[in-house]
């Protein structure tokens, strides 16, 4: 069968969602941000809520998310996305509001905003990209950096005695009564992308049902910051990140799930 007979509109099985703009993504080759953007947009497309959704872009690599996501977006100050989202959601309770934040934004400068938004049980969705590093500014150590991990500000590896312990934000937030759905996923393989999409769908569905804050952490690579090739960084992530940040649902319908 000739390839021209296959490439026809009626045989189409997968294409980029129209909710992603045609702009070339500003991310490094192989970065998980692009995949995460796309699956968030696919979920919004499937739910048919494009005109009802307001996203809040953070500071970090994804600061330009509003260029790529074809929904209404607001830019927040560094770490303050959950606070901005709280305001939007309280003014328009019928809209879907989500924030898209990295670990330097959510787990460092925005810890207070995040924890308090979760504790108040704000009815928003947080997409949290965790790559254990400040990717945009040149690979500095973040609160989520693993023990012994080399970054530009911890060139001999993170020393727990002087630099503290890596912060498991998602576990912390799952403990709060205000959160409804908390999950940790990744986007490095087709299976994980499909699972992450289901988790994001569940997060938006719980927002629809007014159940409280929903959070999906996506453990992602930062091949530029980690100084690796994209495929090697994904392998490194599976080997080193997942034992410390295990994937799976942590809280479903307001009840903690025992993964261990």
């Amino acid at each position, binding site marked *: *069968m000739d*390839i021209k*007979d*296959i*490439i*026809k509109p009626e*045989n*189409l*099985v*997968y*294409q*980029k*969602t129209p909710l*992603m703009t045609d702009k*070339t*993504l500003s*991310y*490094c*080759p*192989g*970065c*998980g*941000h*692009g*995949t995460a953007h*796309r699956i968030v947009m696919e979920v919004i497309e499937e739910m048919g809520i494009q005109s009802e959704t307001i996203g809040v872009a953070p500071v970090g690599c994804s600061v330009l998310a509003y260029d790529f996501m074809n929904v209404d977006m607001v830019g927040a100050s560094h770490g303050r996305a959950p606070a901005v989202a709280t305001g939007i959601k309280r003014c328009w309770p019928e809209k879907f509001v989500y924030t898209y934040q990295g670990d330097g934004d959510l787990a460092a400068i925005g810890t207070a905003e995040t924890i308090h938004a979760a504790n108040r049980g704000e009815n928003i969705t947080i997409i949290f990209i965790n790559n254990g590093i400040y990717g945009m500014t040149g690979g500095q150590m973040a609160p989520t950096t693993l023990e012994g991990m080399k970054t530009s500000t911890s060139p001999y590896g993170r020393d727990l005695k002087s630099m503290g312990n890596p912060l498991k934000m998602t576990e912390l937030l799952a403990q709060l009564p205000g959160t409804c759905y908390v999950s940790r996923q990744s*986007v*490095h*393989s*087709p299976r994980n*992308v*499909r699972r992450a999409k289901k988790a994001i769908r569940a997060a938006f569905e719980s927002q629809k049902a007014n159940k409280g804050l929903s959070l999906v952490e996506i453990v992602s690579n930062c091949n530029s910051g980690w100084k690796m*090739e*994209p*495929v090697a960084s*994904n392998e490194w992530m599976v080997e080193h990140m997942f034992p410390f940040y295990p994937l799976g649902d942590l809280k479903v319908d307001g009840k903690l799930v025992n993964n261990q």
Partner: protein
Amino acid sequence: MAKMKGAIVVDIEKCKGCEVCRVACPNDVIAIAQEVNHKGYHYAYQEHQENCVGCANCAVVCPDGVITVYKVKLSD
């Protein structure tokens, strides 16, 4: 048994050659070109189209969403 036959179209100018699709492909359909695109990246292309079953794994993991997948069912 019905057989699936697939084909992919890569938006070469937007591809950044990260090779994530090549690793995700179960049938080794995708290879990275020797040539570069306008931005200087070695782009992904369909080397062994005859092996493609249209599973869309490559398109699902592509960070830049540059792959479109087509599939037909062949009845024997």
